[in-house]
């Protein structure tokens, strides 16, 4: 049924593998180019090439003029650098070593540095970055991290991985046992319904941490020498209606789609500066997940990893009040059961509805929840205001 391979087809096979390294295809005979681009086996590859903006001209007559404009871009995901902002929260004044370590990854992008309002000293920031510095409003906490080195001592690019996660589809409605089917070398497994294989847009990408994992204070105090050395080479979509603990460390999100939901609204009375003395990101994460589930967006978890250094003392933190942990027990059933109306079609609408439910169901029992709901409502107002300018 299948003919044995010819020398021509073997040559074509080998050419395809090395395709992206060839910058000038003019020497290739037309009929071979046609085989390459029109043959079904390479259709997927073709689509990738076309989408990557590398083909100058595709005519309808069946002849194709191809000029590979930028060979390197063929294997990259297409997000323009000016579509990415990196937000850095400055909790300490000297950012020099942190920024130098991340320079290779950050220098292409625009940075937004937000200074902790309680920080008195001036920030020390090295030159050569395109950045805006803000000293008020809340931010994602990134300080205390460095990028992971792989076995060869090369830095893994966390930003690139987050971009990949956000720009490939997510699959929240059916679990793929080979994890992210849009990665290289993998696909949907047998039994995965075809109608669900195009996936949905990804709104949020949650990365993980090596060395110091994001454990809470009790766990950290019990196991002070525990280090996370297990590198799990996977990204997966967190299924719809499954809640997860969102860590504010190492996340990326699609601002257009779910920006309004990423607000740390839930502040503890005695909240501390160290990560395990807060729960605002956990609260935010559950809001964001509810929003994504309702709007049929995906949330991915897994790669990239960042390497976390030691900071603070878990036992000291334990001595402080960690009522947040107790409070979170109450909110989990709430988030697992909250349902939004059909009328909520944007993230702003969803957040407003969640805030209303929070006030109604949780706010009466504890004023901290009522306050959180107020903050969320204010934030939405601010968001709309700023955005409309």
């Amino acid at each position, binding site marked *: 049924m299948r003919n044995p391979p010819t020398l021509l087809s073997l040559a074509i096979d080998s050419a395809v593998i090395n395709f992206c390294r060839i910058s000038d295809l003019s020497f290739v005979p037309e009929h071979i180019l046609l085989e390459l681009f029109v043959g079904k086996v390479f259709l997927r590859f073709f689509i990738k090439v076309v989408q990557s903006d590398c083909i100058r001209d595709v005519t309808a007559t069946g002849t194709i003029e191809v000029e590979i404009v930028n060979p390197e871009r063929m294997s990259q995901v297409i997000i323009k650098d000016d579509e990415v902002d990196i937000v850095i929260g400055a909790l300490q004044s000297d950012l020099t070593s942190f920024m130098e370590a991340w320079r290779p990854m950050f220098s292409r992008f625009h940075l937004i540095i937000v200074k902790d309002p309680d920080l008195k000293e001036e920030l020390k920031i090295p030159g050569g970055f395109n950045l805006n510095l803000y000293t008020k409003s809340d931010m994602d906490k990134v300080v205390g991290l460095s990028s992971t080195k792989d076995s060869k001592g090369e830095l893994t690019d966390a930003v690139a991985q987050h971009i990949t996660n956000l720009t490939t589809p997510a699959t929240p409605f059916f*679990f793929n*046992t080979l994890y992210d089917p849009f990665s290289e*070398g993998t696909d949907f*497994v047998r039994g995965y319904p075809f109608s669900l294989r195009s996936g949905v847009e990804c709104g949020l990408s*949650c990365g993980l941490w090596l060395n110091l994992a994001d454990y809470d204070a009790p766990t950290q105090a019990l196991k002070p020498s525990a280090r996370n050395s297990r590198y799990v*080479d996977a990204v997966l979509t967190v299924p*719809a209606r499954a809640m*997860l603990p969102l860590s504010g460390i190492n996340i990326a999100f699609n601002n257009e789609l779910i920006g309004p939901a990423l607000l740390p609204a839930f502040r503890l009375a005695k909240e501390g500066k160290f990560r395990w003395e807060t729960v605002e990101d956990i609260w935010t994460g559950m809001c964001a997940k509810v929003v994504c589930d309702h709007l049929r967006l995906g949330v991915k*978890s897994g790669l990239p990893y960042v390497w976390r250094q030691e900071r603070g003392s878990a036992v000291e933190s334990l001595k402080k009040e960690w009522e947040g942990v107790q409070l979170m027990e109450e909110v989990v059933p709430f988030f697992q059961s909250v349902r939004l109306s059909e009328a909520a079609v944007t993230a702003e609408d969803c957040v407003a509805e969640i805030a209303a439910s929070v006030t109604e169901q949780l706010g009466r029992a504890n004023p901290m929840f009522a306050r959180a709901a107020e903050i969320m409502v204010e934030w939405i107002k601010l968001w709309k205001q700023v955005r409309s300018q």
Partner: protein
Amino acid sequence: MAASRSSTPVLKDELDIVIPTIRNLDFLEMWRPFFQPYHLIIVQDGDPSKTIKVPDGFDYELYNRIDINRILGPKANCISFKDSACRCFGYMVSKKKLTRDSLECLIAIVPIDLQYVFVDMIGNFACKTMNLGKYFIVDLTSLQSKDPTHADALCSANKYPSNRKGLLSPLFPKNWFRIFIESFIDMQVAKDPSGKEINALEQHIKNLLSPSTPFFFNTLYDPYCEGTDFVRGYPFSLREGVPTAVSHGLWLNIPDYDAPTQLVKPRERNTRYEQALYPNSTFAAFSVQDTDHIYIYSFLRYVDAVMTVPKGTLFPMCGMNLAFDRELIGPAMYFGLMGDGQPIGRYDDMWAGWCTKVICDHLGLGVKTGLPYIWHSKASNPFVNLKKEYKGIYWQEELIPFFQSVTIPKDCTTVQKCYIELSKQVKAKLGKVDDYFNKLADAMVTWIDAWDELNPSGSSGKLPNGAAK
């Protein structure tokens, strides 16, 4: 071969291994070190007059079609013929708590193959000064012949470094994934601090004996594994977990794709890269860094994690590398009517998986997926597969919404009751998709009758305290 140092119980008297087969079982030789302690249940499909040869030294019982007919009588029609779905008969007659499924096309898990190579390579190293930072490349597919000199010959034929000389190869791309085989080294050369197990069977046992967490997703995956825990924000009230009913393992090398995907991507291996350098082989490179650690760089996508599939989420359950707790979920492991005389094939495990997951969700039991990996070496013919599957490909579009929306009443507190309830709903809602589902619904009832008849004490399917929802 030295026995691996293990803190996981062997569970010799509590585990059966079920093997559906149509051929002689010579492949068991390769599994001998891992399977020999256990009792095997062999279900012989196809022509019952043929004698299946089982290597010596195994403790087994064998059932062919004639036995199945004799034992089940008129109920035997629920057991498929000429399809691996017949394996569920083995589950029914097992008397043990845990069951592990093992299809004959499995050759060995990656570490076993590598181990064979290592005996040779380590022998060389042990008597020489260690040269640090050297790389060795071995063609893993050649190890099917279990002859390292064959691997050697392949290396030199392809003009890349032989596994004895250790030359650094510039061919390999930079981001290899590193598998750290620690207990393996423990067996041969050096001591290892963590003693990580890589025995597939032991990993399944570990998965089944530790709890699952279906109600909240832990971003560091299975929190009961060594070296990991619940992350900040994980509700303390949910940290005890629930009993695990199913452990679903994965496969390296040939992935479990359906026919259309196989046709489009005949060469894909479960790899980190779109195409391995030499498409019909899968390679690993070994680097000796110091006397304690040997790093194995591999194209293989080995995801070092086990995780619980969250409640309310369905997944495609592959029967190739499956273990489950018979007492908790056994009656739900019915693989349907497939094969000879049926309009569909290659959906047996899918069907069992969807039913099982729905029942586990209802009863508050956990399903884990991920480790262990096994090495899948035999790719089936995609055209034959397409013929078997194509109805399934259309039908699953109806089946998925059905399973996603099915609700089981609160008074169904045993697996059998849930299953009978499911069969009623299958008849009511899927009967109109095709008459096949009416027959399947009847077969589901027959299965439960047969199960209860062969397992009369009522000890299987009993609910752990307080888990009904």
